[in-house]
């Protein structure tokens, strides 16, 4: 494990049991996260973003899931191998997670204060009263007005945006080193989305956390993250640091995603989409997984499954033709 990374996922392959067979949901995923970095994972629905994120804290349904291979190194330990007791200690205190649907992610029969306080009682041994007092402070921190009154309320009294703030308060209660946010704003309306994302950015700076932000919205990813991994059909297909990915995408799928961003300045009749859909995980296509939808596909793309190609400068792609072209240009200049 390199010193500069707080989290290193390597060779992660996860399978789900479906009708007596094991179906591979993600294959050979490699990702790294540096301290205070915000890693964005982007991709269409079903590309394996959540499966990847849930693997870190081993939150998959135990019986129907199998981690076929891979390691997730956190502070020198493989999270996939630590004992359940140790995992429970890490969950919520060192690595915390928030989810896509704030409406269903909070327990309807426990008060907000109880749910936030529980994290503190588990990990910091606070008593009920102290935990509750601290919960009020946390609600202030996530900018929920009238926090003192809100702690005694139940989730159904709050709007979606407020509930997501409660989820965030719960997640940062123990000042975790890593916060995983799996599409935290997808279920919220646009103005609330921006508020939540800004809040997350401020908290990251304030608490010095590393963040993994998952989204299928390229706009969100470009604005809030400093490193990007693009996922397609269970694989990472391109990785880049900074704006490189937007200036010169190194995978046709990334190009497609960028074309699909709605743009107010550009006056188009119809939004560009990527034709076709993600292949079924149970019947994965041979060769490059994107080739049936790729406008640039060559004969070799149909048969040879491409490995990740390192382009230098922390740039990686799974598209050999584009990598070659880049190399040619690089060679000429």
């Amino acid at each position: 494990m390199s010193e500069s990374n707080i989290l290193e996922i390597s060779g992660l392959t996860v399978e789900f049991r479906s009708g007596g067979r094991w179906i591979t949901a993600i294959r050979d995923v490699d990702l790294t996260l540096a301290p205070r970095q915000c890693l964005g994972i982007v991709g269409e629905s079903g590309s394996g973003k959540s499966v990847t994120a849930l693997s870190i804290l081993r939150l998959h349904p135990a019986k129907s899931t199998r981690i076929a291979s891979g390691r997730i190194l956190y502070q020198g330990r493989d999270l996939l191998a630590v004992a359940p007791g140790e995992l429970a200690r890490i969950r919520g205190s060192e690595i915390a997670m928030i989810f896509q649907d704030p409406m269903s992610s909070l327990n309807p029969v426990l008060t907000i204060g109880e749910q936030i306080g529980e994290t503190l009682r588990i990990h910091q041994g606070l008593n009920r009263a102290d935990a509750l007092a601290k919960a009020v402070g946390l609600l202030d921190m996530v900018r929920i007005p009238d926090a003192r009154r809100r702690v005694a309320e139940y989730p159904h009294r709050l709007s979606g945006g407020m509930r997501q703030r409660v989820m965030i308060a719960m997640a940062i209660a123990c000042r975790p080193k890593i916060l995983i946010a799996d599409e935290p704003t997808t279920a919220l309306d646009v103005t609330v989305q921006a508020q939540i994302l800004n809040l997350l950015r401020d908290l990251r700076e304030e608490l010095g956390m590393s963040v993994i932000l998952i989204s299928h919205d390229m706009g969100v990813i470009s604005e809030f993250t400093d490193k990007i991994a693009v996922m397609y059909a269970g694989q990472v297909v391109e990785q880049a640091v900074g704006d490189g990915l937007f200036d010169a995408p190194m995978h046709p799928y990334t190009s497609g995603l960028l074309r699909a961003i709605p743009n107010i300045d550009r006056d188009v009749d119809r939004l560009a989409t990527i034709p076709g859909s993600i292949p079924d995980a149970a019947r994965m296509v041979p060769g490059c997984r994107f080739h049936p939808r790729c406008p640039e596909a060559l004969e070799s793309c149909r048969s040879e499954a491409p490995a990740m190609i390192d382009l230098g400068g922390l740039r990686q792609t799974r598209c050999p033709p584009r990598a070659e072209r880049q190399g040619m240009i690089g060679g000429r200049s």
Partner: protein
Amino acid sequence: MLRLITFRLAHAVPILLIIAVLAFLLMQLLPGDPAVLMAGEGATPQAIQEIRQRLNLDQPLVRQLGTWLLHLAQGDLGSSLQLNQTVVSAVAERLPVSLSLAAISLLITVPAGIMLGVVAAYARDSWLDAVAMAVALIGVSVPTFWIAILSVILFSVTLGWLPSAGYVPLSEGFVPWLLALIQPAIVLALFQIGFLARMTRSAMLDVLDQDFIRTARAKGVVESVVLWKHAFRNTLIAVLTVVGYIFSLLIGGSVIVEQVFALPGVGRLVVQAVLTRDYPLVQGTLLLFGFIFVLINIATDILYLIVDPRVRYD
């Protein structure tokens, strides 16, 4: 909350009235002349006439209903034809037996059924689940009288551990009372445990799939707390509904067990009243069961308010 409880109680009044009218109509719905039926074969015309007068059957229907409701309001349900008692005192004398039986049975059923259901749901599709559900299935499907007889043969006749029949009032000591009731209570509970376990299991399976369970795990909550605090508390509405239903079944449905174990409870009284065509007594017990059902329903509704914040506010 107080307003809701008051509202719920007020709501019960018309229902209780309907039950009273139905109990009254029971007598009218009998084919033929109830007085003749009640008097039995070979009764003299005088005897029949006497019954008719005693039960006001010679009056117009509306008048009869008025009298019946008026008496009912005063706590007067008339007298039994066969027993030398008023209906109220006959029922009141036997009610403690049935209530004791139901209470002990419920005290066994609730923890056992919930435990079995929760464990089965948590260990879904494992051998533990299979065993728990097999036990529940046996409890539900084997006839109560058969279990009762087997139990008596084993524990009373062969082993001689427990009395096979009879009731000892609580006033004669807690232990003798418990010893007299424990065997019939367990026999009664066996069916209900199976029922409650199956309902609890399916409610738990629904809850365990919810997002907030994953949230709890992501916070580092240990599995036992996830199970009881985060999941089970969300099934309380469903569980309470079933427990309330079971409690009313226990009070009404103890007929067989009271018969086998010769317990002088309301269940036996009903059988006796029907067999001897003691209609005032049948009416009285019918009324009692109706009232108890309604009371249990109200109690369940009020408990909903306590266990579920969503009900509390809406």
